[in-house]
């Protein structure tokens, strides 16, 4: 499939698209991909460039939206510097990383486990799949509200049943949302509830696309299923894992609705993650400059994290191909 082969074996096309089209057309392997990508790149650029430049501009100034009468002063890198010196920033960063790592880790293994179970041809499995997917279908705000309701005093299912059981066993009531450590884990739990279906779906896809031959070979060798899993399934699943984990990490890092509805960063500041901090700064205190600087820092962190992750996985993926 070299270029020369293409051009010589497809004369009708070259004839019908003489002129501009043949210059930018499929035969030009240097230019054509850009033609195909152009609409995507143009839209992303058009929508993305102004917000990005605006953020850079605002972050280098001193703008408080609720005080439009204040003069705009250029402050250079002051906003970033102030953030880095702000203990609240480091606290939020630590909480965010902890939340992201825990949530993605648990979601990944649970999702993988479920995906493996669903490989079996069981009666009623198609039906069950819809049940499993429900949390993901809910709007994030609604999911968060449902869980706030689950922990409502009195009528909340968790409070009433789980709390009732622990009370009966003599452990007393569990402070699901009132103890700093437990509240944080409760949020991780709800995030896991909401997004494991996503992992499950992405990994199911990956599993199903693994060819059969390697397993047959392993069977002949008499390899244990544990070994098969680690030496065949996991490596071949890499592309699916990559997308699933990168997307989920990006989203977990930005989790907002869940936290703001259920605890709003409390109790104390136990669940104040970056995005809670950001939203408070930007949309409650209207400190646009600080918020812009913060969001740019957040974006840098996500970029670095994804980049490293993709690098690690990519190199192996391409070998597998």
């Amino acid at each position, binding site marked *: 499939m070299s270029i020369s082969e293409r051009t010589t074996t497809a004369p009708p096309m070259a004839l019908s698209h003489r002129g501009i089209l043949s210059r930018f057309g499929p035969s030009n392997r240097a230019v054509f991909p850009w033609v195909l990508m152009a609409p995507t790149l143009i839209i992303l650029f058009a929508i993305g460039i102004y917000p990005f430049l605006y953020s850079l501009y605002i972050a280098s100034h001193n703008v408080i939206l609720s005080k439009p009468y204040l003069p705009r002063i250029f402050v250079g890198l002051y906003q970033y510097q102030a953030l880095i010196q702000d203990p609240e920033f480091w606290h939020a960063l630590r909480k965010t990383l902890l939340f992201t790592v825990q949530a993605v880790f648990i979601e990944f293994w649970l999702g993988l486990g479920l995906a493996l179970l669903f490989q079996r041809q069981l009666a009623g499995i198609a039906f069950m799949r819809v049940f499993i997917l429900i949390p993901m279908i809910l709007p994030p705000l609604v999911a968060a509200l449902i869980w706030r309701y689950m922990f409502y005093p009195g*009528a909340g299912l968790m409070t009433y049943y789980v709390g009732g059981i622990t009370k009966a066993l003599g452990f007393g009531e569990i402070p699901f949302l009132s103890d700093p450590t437990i509240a944080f884990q409760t949020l991780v739990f709800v995030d896991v509830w909401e997004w494991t279906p996503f992992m499950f779906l992405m990994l199911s896809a990956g599993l199903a696309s693994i060819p059969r031959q390697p397993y047959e070979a392993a069977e002949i060798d008499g390899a244990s299923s544990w070994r098969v899993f680690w030496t065949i399934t996991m490596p071949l699943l890499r592309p699916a894992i990559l997308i699933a984990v990168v997307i989920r990490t990006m989203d977990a890092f930005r989790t907002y609705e869940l936290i703001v509805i259920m605890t709003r960063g409390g109790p104390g500041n136990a669940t104040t993650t970056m995005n809670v901090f950001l939203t408070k700064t930007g949309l409650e205190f209207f400190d646009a400059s600080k918020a812009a600087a913060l969001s740019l820092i957040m974006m840098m962190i996500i970029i670095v994290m994804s980049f490293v992750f993709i690098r690690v996985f990519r190199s192996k993926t391409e070998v597998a191909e």
Partner: protein
Amino acid sequence: MNIVKLSAATAAGLSLLMLALPTHAQTEAQKALSGKTVHFLAPSMPQFAALAKFFPEFEEKYGIKVVVDEVPFENYRQKSLVEMQQGTGTYDFFAVDVMWLAEYAAAGFLEPLMPYVKNADLTDADYDIDDFLPRVISGTGVFNDTLYTLPIGAGPVGTTFRADVAEKAGFKLPERFSPEFTTKYMYDAAKKVNNPESNMIGFANIPGRWFWGVTYLPYLFAYQTPETKGDEYVDKDWKITINNERTVASIDYFLSLKEFMPADSANWGIGEATAVYQAGNAFGTWNYQDFVKGFFEDPETQAKVAGKNVHLHTPAGPDGVIDPWFGAWSLGVSKDSKNKEAAWTFMQWVTSKDVQARATQYGAGPSRHSTYKSETLAKYQPWWPGVYEFMLKETNPDERVRVPEWAEISDIMGEEGNRVWIGEIDSKTAAANMEKRMTDAMRKGGYYIPGRNDLPKQQWRDLTYYDRLPSEWN
């Protein structure tokens, strides 16, 4: 009780009569506005739901269509600010919380209203702006001696208790504003009936971190002495003063109510505490006057508690000081509106004596003398007339300091206070932290720049400012 019932019957008859009578004549200028549509941005709150009941009537009468865009309260502030800032003109009038007036007016987002009030072509002859309670209209709508918004109900916060439960325990709750109702009384009463085993907690407090600016303040104020009144957060030079023994004592008192509450309550908000009370499982809880009807007195949805409540003020502190809380929503015309006259026509109609009185049936609160005295109010919301004198003489529109930094101040208060609640720090540390962090916020806001002479006026130091007759404002 009997008098209330009697007057209720006549009020029902009267309001029927009023419905049938044409109350306003339409002017030529108003007729010319027929066919227009005005857009109104409002948070989804009961006050506005009550007003919405009157849109069809207005439309029929004036031919002006009112389209309301309801936004969750959480997002309302951001949305309205962005709309105003960018001058979109999408909305002709806005709902404005008392806390935001200074900001919006200073930024020039709102249209001064007095010219409209005085315009006989657009305002009904019977409008009578001096019928508004002076402190309510000026506290809600006046900035820099200029009237910017019209109030649609202003009220204090308070506490609601179960009279029947008290009776069973052998005591009778005092009247609203009775000096007998002190912080100590409240704690003792709660303790007397507190019995979590049989599903009755003494008091459902609201310690969630984002509510302290609403639910803790009554105690911060109660613990002031007559001498320290006015210096609760800041002194005359805007230096933060919150780190003192009164703050510590009030936090300790607020925390003492924790003993009545279940273990998982550090995040309780208004929703949780109210739900517990509505379910009949709490003796007392916090209230805001405008929510009383929807939260506690709706016989359809609150069958367990409706009619059994006593609505009190928040308790007086050791020195007899009570919280002068003032909460209000108002309507303001957008500077960028293209239909200012039509918007005003609606606003003057909906805040007129007649509509205001009738709206109380649906849960709207009063802000006019005539509404306070109306029989509809006495019939449907009998807990209101009791606060008339308070709203006239005691209330303080600057109870929460109305500066743009308030959001931050209140957040700091909530975070530090909530940390005390969960036992991370003690109340002394919290007060010290509050002072330090609030000072940082004020410094950032530019209050301590040497030689700055345009700092906001501290009107709360002389409340007579707000007592001017409404028609005297610009």
